[in-house]
């Protein structure tokens, strides 16, 4: 009976290799295209840096093959493609600022792309380390409260440090010592997702208990509102103490979504949304920073602010408008006119040079990662894995939505990074760790069930085992 057919959870290494190859061809071609726009010489870096990146993707693939053989074949190639495209775009912005510095006769700042390549190496190394160390995602469940303590510590650390060690451009979300700087919120996000999953698995039965019915909606009991209020208070605290709108929104959104997944009660979404609206109105009225962000969002072209406060958003919008449907072509636009184009505004760089068509393709790749992540979560046999997978995938989706929504002026700008694309070590490294966890869950969900040692006699029960 076991040889009747290959199990659904068959290995799909060939597909993964082909897709990674496709992503690498794309990266290399984009790299060449950028270089060609700036000099007629054959780009010197393409051999060393290009081969380095190809080797990195190969090592990551081999690690997945060895340590998560049944994992989804689309997740890793998508990440490799986004990371490669990000490196090319960061390099492209480096070239622009170098040529601008040359024109102005000043020395150019440090190039960001080589640093990002170093961070990619670290990210892939940690990706492999997570796959090797976390052989079964269920073992993370025993770390529930350790993850909570660690996540909270990382989250509040910048608020406790003196501003000189924690504040960059108004947001108090950094740990800075000497030349080294790190944004702990990105790692805290993953730790907190582990905590939420472990906590909700234990408490879901209580939180799903029905209370009063109002307007066809079954509300939870009043005394069970504690956890959601704590999460709400904590995210408001991040907002006031650290002026970090993005993390605050992300943190609360992930909690409410996971609460909904755990309990299947729509009332939690309504309560979460209500708390969000109250919190937003409070923040808008009380916190000056938030008030400014909303004003910039509503009036980016206001002549009073366009030269300083809303300059970045306005330039980004002009850039995206210049790009149109098909873009100006790599290296042909002026995305470097937008401040922080390689971190906050990498999406507007894509929209300017690759157009709406390019930005849509990138968003579809994110959609595929999220979809495959949720798919893995559904297929997992244990509740902790389901919740963790759903939380990780939803967190990624929310982050992309908030980030691209800010740049395209759908919602106020918040200052999150675009996963795998934006320049920034902490973001890149933590997204590789997140991907490793998703692959681990995916591997568990697609792995054929181990044969039971005491399988009952087939003829007697007519049970069919694969």
């Amino acid at each position, binding site marked *: *009976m076991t040889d*009747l*057919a*290959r*199990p*659904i*959870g068959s290995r*799909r290494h060939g*597909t993964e290799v*082909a*897709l990674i190859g*496709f*992503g690498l*061809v*794309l990266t290399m*071609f*984009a790299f060449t*295209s950028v270089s*060609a*726009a700036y000099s007629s010489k054959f780009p010197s870096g393409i051999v060393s840096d290009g081969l380095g990146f190809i080797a990195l993707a190969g090592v990551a693939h081999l690690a997945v093959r060895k340590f998560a053989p049944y994992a*989804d*074949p*689309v997740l890793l*190639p*998508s990440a490799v*493609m986004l990371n490669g495209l990000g490196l090319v775009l960061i390099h492209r912005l480096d070239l622009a600022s170098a040529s601008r510095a040359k024109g102005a006769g000043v020395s150019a700042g440090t190039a960001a792309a080589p640093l990002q390549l170093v961070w990619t190496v670290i990210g892939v190394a940690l990706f492999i380390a997570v796959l090797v160390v976390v052989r079964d995602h269920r073992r993370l469940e025993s770390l529930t409260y350790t993850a909570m303590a660690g996540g909270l510590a990382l989250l509040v650390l910048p608020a406790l440090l003196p501003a000189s060690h924690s504040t960059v451009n108004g947001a108090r979300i950094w740990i800075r010592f000497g030349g080294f700087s790190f944004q702990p919120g990105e790692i805290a996000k993953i730790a907190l997702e582990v905590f939420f999953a472990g906590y909700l698995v234990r408490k879901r039965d209580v939180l799903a208990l029905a209370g009063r019915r109002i307007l066809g909606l079954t509300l939870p009991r009043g005394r069970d509102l504690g956890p959601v209020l704590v999460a709400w208070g904590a995210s408001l605290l991040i907002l006031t103490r650290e002026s970090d709108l993005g993390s605050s929104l992300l943190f609360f959104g992930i909690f409410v979504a996971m609460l909904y997944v755990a309990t299947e009660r729509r009332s939690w979404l309504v309560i979460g949304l209500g708390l969000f609206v109250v919190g937003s109105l409070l923040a808008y009225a009380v916190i000056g920073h938030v008030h400014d962000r909303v004003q910039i969002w509503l009036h980016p072209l206001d002549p009073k602010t366009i030269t300083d406060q809303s300059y970045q958003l306005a330039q980004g919008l002009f850039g995206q408008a210049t790009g149109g449907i*098909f*873009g*100006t*072509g*790599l290296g*042909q636009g002026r995305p470097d006119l937008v401040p922080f184009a390689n971190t906050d505004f990498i999406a507007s760089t894509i929209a300017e040079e*690759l*157009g709406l*068509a*390019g930005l849509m*393709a*990138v968003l*579809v*790749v994110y959609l*595929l990662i999220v*979809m*495959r992540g949720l*798919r893995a979560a*559904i*297929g997992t046999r244990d509740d902790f894995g389901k919740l963790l997978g759903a939380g990780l995938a939803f967190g990624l989706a929310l982050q992309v939505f908030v980030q691209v929504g800010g740049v395209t002026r759908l919602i106020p700008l918040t200052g999150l990074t675009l996963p795998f694309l934006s320049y920034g070590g902490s973001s890149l490294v933590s997204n590789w760790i997140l991907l490793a966890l998703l692959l681990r869950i995916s591997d568990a*969900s*697609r792995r*054929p*069930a181990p044969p*039971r040692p005491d399988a009952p006699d087939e003829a007697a029960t*007519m*049970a*069919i*085992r*694969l």
Partner: protein
Amino acid sequence: MPVAVVFLLRTVVLILLWGFVIAAVVAVRNDIFGPKPKKERAPRPARAPRPARQAKPSKKAVLPPARVAVIDGPLAGMSVALSSLPITIGRADDSTIAINDDYVSSHHARLVPNGAVWLLEDLGSTNGTVLDAAKVSGPTEVHAGSQIRIGRTVLELQP
């Protein structure tokens, strides 16, 4: 750079970008519906007798189904005799027909005898149960020759 070269480079980058997206979507599609269309077409000759069966529906409808056969999917080729006991279908080990398929819920559907007829019931599965191209919402009568699709598996009641 000449305008034509810029245009060419830009077009190729966009084609590669969307090519990657399409390749990834095809990979996802293969994952859901099986690797090659060829494989799906293969069982069709086996289903050839179906029109003949439908030619005399009045006589066949009277015949009570005697067994449920798996005609497509990982368990294709096996069949279970129908007795007076209900038959459960799902991913869980305690199902009568245990299918190892991502798209099948632990307790997906069941076939329950009701006098001379068999009723098909979906047990709140994630991806639903399809009987002859229609989604099953409540207990539905199943006759000999009807096809039940659950995930990637197709079952048929045979006289």
